[in-house]
């Protein structure tokens, strides 16, 4: 709960609002992140994810509300917060005209990593990021995935308890993305709190908890499983049949059906209970002229949940 101090809470955001003129970029957002937790920010571009992260890094001043990071109020003491955080901005922001090692040494110096430890830490970061042998390469010559891991390396060189990653994997190939997430999990195992934004649904599944953000608002907050259950109470059925357009109308008026959504050339149908529904839907479609439909229960994805929650939010607004 915000306000109530728990030593375990590393990030505490309380009714945060950010306005740019008449535009409300962040609208009354409240959440906590525990030690060692990976919190995912899921939402479309322009939803306000980056703005929240920038406020937590002390780069933007909140219009109102409070943000505590590593036990320090960001608005009151941004400099103290900065020593306790690592930040990876959305746009790659290391020095392309310096080498891997020079970038690491620069940030080691800026964060005042003890002189005795610097060589050893750079070595371990290089190893962790899989950059061994590339220490003397100019950063501008590295491929996307390598740059991303180096940026993470620069952000964790000073061993911050809190890490902010703003869409760290955008524009990176799937294998590099997988590897990147393994690194994030290792950090979380070491007790680092990670706040990571993404618009990849599959990545959100790797997070301990997810904050769904849309149009500046926190639409939902919970574990991936919780969000799916909350957004989709009942059972999700996958329907494959001919005449999809006609089938959507038919199923929408079928008894016991809550919602129908098209996913590619299949339909996701949300029903109250599973018992007997499969056969009943097949019969309903056959009775209305669509024969040979295949229906089976499926595990709802985060995308299903996201679509449900965001539509609900937008309709309410």
């Amino acid at each position, binding site marked *: 709960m915000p306000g109530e101090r728990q030593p375990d809470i590393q990030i505490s955001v309380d009714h945060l609002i950010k306005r740019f003129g008449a535009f409300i970029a962040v609208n009354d957002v409240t959440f906590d992140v525990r030690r060692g937790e990976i919190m995912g920010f899921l939402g479309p571009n322009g939803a306000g994810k980056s703005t929240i992260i*920038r406020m937590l*890094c*002390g*780069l*933007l*001043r909140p219009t109102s509300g409070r943000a505590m990071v590593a036990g320090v109020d960001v608005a009151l003491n*941004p*400099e103290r917060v*900065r*020593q306790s*955080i690592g*930040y990876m*901005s959305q*746009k*790659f*922001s*290391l*020095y*392309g*005209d*310096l080498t891997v090692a*020079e970038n690491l*040494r*620069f*940030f*080691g*110096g*800026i*964060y*005042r990593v003890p002189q005795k430890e610097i060589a050893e830490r750079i070595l371990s970061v290089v190893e962790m990021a899989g950059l061994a042998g590339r220490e003397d390469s100019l950063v501008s010559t590295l491929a996307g995935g390598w740059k991303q891991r180096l940026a993470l390396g*620069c952000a964790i060189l000073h061993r911050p308890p809190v890490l902010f990653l703003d869409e760290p994997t955008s524009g990176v190939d799937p294998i590099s993305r997988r590897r990147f997430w393994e690194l994030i999990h290792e950090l979380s195992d070491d007790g680092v709190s990670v706040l990571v934004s993404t618009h990849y649904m599959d990545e959100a599944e790797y997070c301990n908890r997810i904050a769904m953000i849309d149009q500046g608002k926190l639409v939902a907050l919970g574990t991936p499983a919780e969000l799916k259950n909350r957004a989709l109470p009942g059972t999700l059925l996958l329907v494959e049949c001919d005449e999809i357009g006609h089938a959507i109308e038919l199923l929408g008026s079928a008894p016991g059906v809550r919602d129908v959504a098209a996913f590619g050339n299949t339909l996701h149908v949300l029903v109250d209970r599973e018992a007997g529904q499969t056969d009943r839907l097949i019969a309903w479609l056959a009775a209305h002229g669509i024969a040979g439909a295949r229906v089976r229960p499926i595990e709802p994805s985060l995308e299903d949940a996201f679509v449900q929650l965001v539509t609900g939010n937008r309709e309410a607004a």
Partner: protein
Amino acid sequence: MKLRRVRAVVVKEGLQIWRDRRSLIIALLMPFMQMLLLGYGVNLDIKHVAVCTFDRENSQTSQSLLKHFQASSYFAVKHVLDSYKSVTTALDRGDCVITIVIPPDFSERLRDSGQSSIQAILDATDDNTAAVATGYAQSVVSGFSDEVQLQFSGIGGASVAAAAPLSLEARVWYNEDLDSRNFIIPGVVAVVMALVGSQLTSLTISREWERGTMELLVSTPITSMELMIGKLLPYFAIGMLDATFCLGIAVWWFGVPFRGSLATLTLVTVLFLIVVLSIGYLVSVTIRTQLGASQIALILTMLPTMMLSGYTFPIDQMPDFIRPVTYLVYSRYYLTALKSIFLKGSGVVDLWFPILIMLLYAAAVGTWAARAFRKSLD
């Protein structure tokens, strides 16, 4: 302020400067080219003024006077004329700036009364040159009259000497050759240093904004003072190198006499460099695009240094309402100090005022620049 962070910035900035070889070469070659261009381009000396002569007497004395004009390096005798009409034609055509006319009774009057006069006809469309030519002519004539006086006192004794013409004899100090180059070149050094110094730093912050590296830098605990000092130090080294080139060219290439001490010269140069580097940095902090920053830095340094520092126009000849403004022009103090050190050999004590002002300037602009940099994206 943490030295560790300053050092990290110095190393990083130094590496970037070293890698950007083209900009580095430009930064080191620019002062050479500018020194030579401005050093040769500006020359206020008027020598070899075109002169015509019209000797209506043609006596030994009158010819002797004209020989003095021929011998003077200030004059170049173009034509020997024989009528007033040809005098008019020569002046109209621009063959000469000045014509010396010797009256037919020149030596007669000199012999009888001990005094005589000649006529000078001038083309004053360029009034400055005309005034200078008049001055030169007077000094040639006075040189001649000294000789005549000596001859008379040899012949006629003391009685004639008392009636001889008096002449004002100016003693020129500090710049005995009256070579304008000697006071222009130190000014050129000031102009070039103002230009190069501010250009060096004007891009350093805007470059980080344009490349997107600033967002990360702002999220680190570095303070704006640490960042500024770390960024200025490598450029200070380049600036000192540039200053050495400029001053070296002034002494060894243009042959400006250097009478002061190296220590005083170094002190005022260091102070001036800090001022112009800080101005460039301030501009860089304020303007977020490299092109804009470079342009503004050029205007802020070049214009006041050229127009208001006393480099082009003497300050005491400026209109009353402009003159107070020149006290704000930082290059004025470096210019004054440089000229005094070069030509008069002035020391720190003589130059306490410009040194004090430059110190204050450096402190003020430095503090302003450090404060102007806000660690925020708002």
